[in-house]
């Protein structure tokens, strides 16, 4: 059975996801220990406890994302995040840093460890390293593998496979991307923010609107044209005499039409990205994927998912690296 893993940026989103049919929700604490350290977002320890209780009462599981890399000399925040997860009964933690994995494996041998996409473990050997050394039970794959490659990989590893299914699409290998820190000084790997809101300014010049990241214009569109988040990898640049999206267009990932292939490839869980999105997004995407998964697994075919399109960056979606031609 395919497990649906939904994002929860706030307690209200957690409830919405559980009620919309998520088998599992993932969330983060309100500090730099997770990769969505956005203003006004995330959970306090007590909110986590309430969230775990609510989810368990409704038959869902909660994962705590502790997926940034502990700052040198300041590992205490990451260790206490692991302690909080254990204390409040999170069903598993999603971790990238080998130091945090080591602490969790030594201190809480019973705790279920999932490997975050930020660990960039995309080969059987890398997954074997994490599984044998820390007892990782599941890996969130980097967004580099096609579906046939996932099927091959599944046969060579003993852990569960989780893949991103909808939402923001990183085109650079997560955990190996320093584009945000190069421009803004803030890094998703270190402080959990990519192109942080504090560095984003929008402006209107005539009938064009621009987005600047730390003063650099990376987006300029005619008003009325769909746009995406102001991240560098979706930005517009001048390459010689042509101007365009060099790395990726403003698009979101949407794999709803690939569900049969993903199941066939042996994927255990589908991860919806978007802890920074609002409750309405979480509810709608969870509901659409719940319907789609149930339809595919019960063999009643798939239904049209037009609603998902409007949730996507730039109003366009892609199946990303799942199809080799994307490379």
């Amino acid at each position: 059975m395919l497990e649906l893993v939904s994002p929860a940026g706030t307690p209200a989103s957690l409830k919405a996801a559980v009620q919309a049919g998520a088998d599992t929700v993932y969330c983060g604490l309100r500090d730099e220990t997770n990769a969505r350290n956005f203003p006004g977002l995330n959970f306090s320890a007590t909110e986590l406890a309430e969230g775990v209780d609510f989810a368990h009462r409704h038959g869902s599981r909660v994962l705590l994302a502790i997926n940034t890399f502990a700052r040198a000399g300041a590992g205490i925040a990451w260790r206490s995040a692991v302690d909080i997860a254990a204390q409040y009964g999170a069903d598993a933690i999603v971790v990238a840093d080998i130091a945090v994995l080591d602490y969790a494996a030594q201190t809480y041998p019973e705790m279920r460890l999932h490997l975050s996409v930020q660990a960039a473990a995309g080969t059987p050997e890398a997954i074997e390293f994490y599984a044998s050394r820390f007892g990782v039970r599941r890996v969130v794959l980097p967004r580099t593998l096609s579906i046939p490659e996932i099927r091959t990989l599944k046969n060579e590893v003993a852990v569960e496979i989780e893949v991103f299914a909808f939402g923001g699409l990183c085109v650079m290998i997560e955990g190996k991307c320093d584009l945000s820190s190069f421009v803004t000084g803030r890094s998703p790997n270190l402080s959990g923010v990519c192109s942080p809101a504090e560095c984003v300014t929008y402006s209107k010049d005539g009938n064009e609107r621009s987005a600047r990241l730390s003063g650099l214009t990376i987006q300029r569109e005619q008003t009325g044209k769909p746009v995406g988040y102001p991240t560098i990898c979706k930005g517009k640049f001048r390459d010689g005499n042509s101007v365009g999206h060099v790395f990726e267009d403003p698009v979101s990932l949407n794999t709803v039409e690939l569900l049969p292939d993903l199941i066939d490839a042996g994927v255990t869980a589908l991860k919806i990205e978007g802890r920074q999105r609002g409750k309405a997004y979480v509810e709608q995407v969870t509901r659409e994927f719940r319907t789609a998964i149930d339809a595919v697994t019960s063999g009643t075919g798939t239904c049209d998912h037009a609603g998902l399109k409007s949730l996507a960056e730039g109003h366009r979606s892609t199946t990303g690296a799942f199809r080799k031609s994307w490379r």
Partner: protein
Amino acid sequence: MRSNPDLVERLKDFEGARIMIAPRSWPLVFLITLRIRCGSIEVLSAETAASADVRVEAPISVLWTIFEGLEDGDTAFFSSDLTIEGEVASLLALRNAIDAAGLNWTALVPVPVPRTFARLIDRLRAEPRQARHA
């Protein structure tokens, strides 16, 4: 905000932030000032010279859907129904705080809603959301 400690906790870094909500082609705008003790919402003329850290402009129907929590701001922003000018951090914090508290923006409006305004709200609610995005 006093009434809701969770809002305070999520917005404490944005004390004094000024957020202007401008319904497209309306003669007036709403200026929200975030303050722990007594935040305020002022109704000003659209030509006001009052400054704000961030200005959000969108058709009233889009704003309303967001206010009612039926759509997250990012969706409207992506479709460019909604445009932003200025620094987005305080706006994001307010959206996340309201979302987290399970409120919707209408809870922010302390005054009883005038009858004419109420009729407008009902008409907006009746407008099918998908039609607007077609």
